């Protein structure tokens, strides 16, 4: 069964600095999708970024980018120019065709002013 691991339960970053959240996953599939979701204090889950495994180019969305290492089964999220509104729980998620999503346990990010 696929599993998603986030080894950092909590992280903190100074406002305007850069932070990287780690995620590793286990799968025997070659085609799949990876996601980062953000859950702010309101608890609404918001999609931050997605990556198709067949694409070698790392996805970027404004200040958010990923480092996708398929062979290492690693999918880290980099947040540049951190803002107070980035404070949230961040969940890494995996999905392969015909399967349900698998979420990691989450990383709580604090942004210090």
């Amino acid at each position: 069964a696929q599993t998603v691991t986030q080894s950092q339960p909590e992280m903190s970053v100074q406002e305007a600095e850069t932070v990287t959240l780690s995620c590793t996953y286990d799968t025997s599939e070659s085609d799949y999708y990876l996601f980062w979701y953000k859950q702010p204090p309101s608890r609404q889950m918001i999609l931050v970024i997605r990556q198709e495994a067949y694409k070698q180019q790392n996805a970027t969305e404004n200040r958010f980018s990923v480092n996708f290492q398929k062979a290492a089964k690693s999918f880290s999220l980099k947040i540049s120019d951190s803002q107070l509104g980035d404070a949230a729980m961040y969940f890494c998620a995996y999905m392969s065709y015909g399967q349900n999503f698998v979420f990691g346990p989450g990383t709580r990010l604090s942004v210090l002013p």
Partner: protein
Amino acid sequence: SQTIHQWPATLVQPVGSPLSLECTVEGTSNPNLYWYRQAAGRGLQLLFYSVGIGQISSEVPQNLSASRPQDRQFILSSKKLLLSDSGFYLCAGRREDRNEQFFGPGTRLTVL
């Protein structure tokens, strides 16, 4: 755009009482729908998913049940709540064109 509505937003129920949480979807037809539970500060636990009307798959055996009476309606129920049923319940749908999940605002359930 696809949107999920959930109600109620907050619910406080005594142990042993029944439960009905409702989830409705707008902007798509025949979506895959999911119920998750999230304990405070923890990850998401998949409870049920549905690929169509009347089709329910259970991921975790417990005293909860789910039903899908209409294409865009997904209901989470219990006949008798337990203290351990307290948590935050999220309904989600799946965007087939992008293979993403989109979420409702959630229901915070407290069982006393």
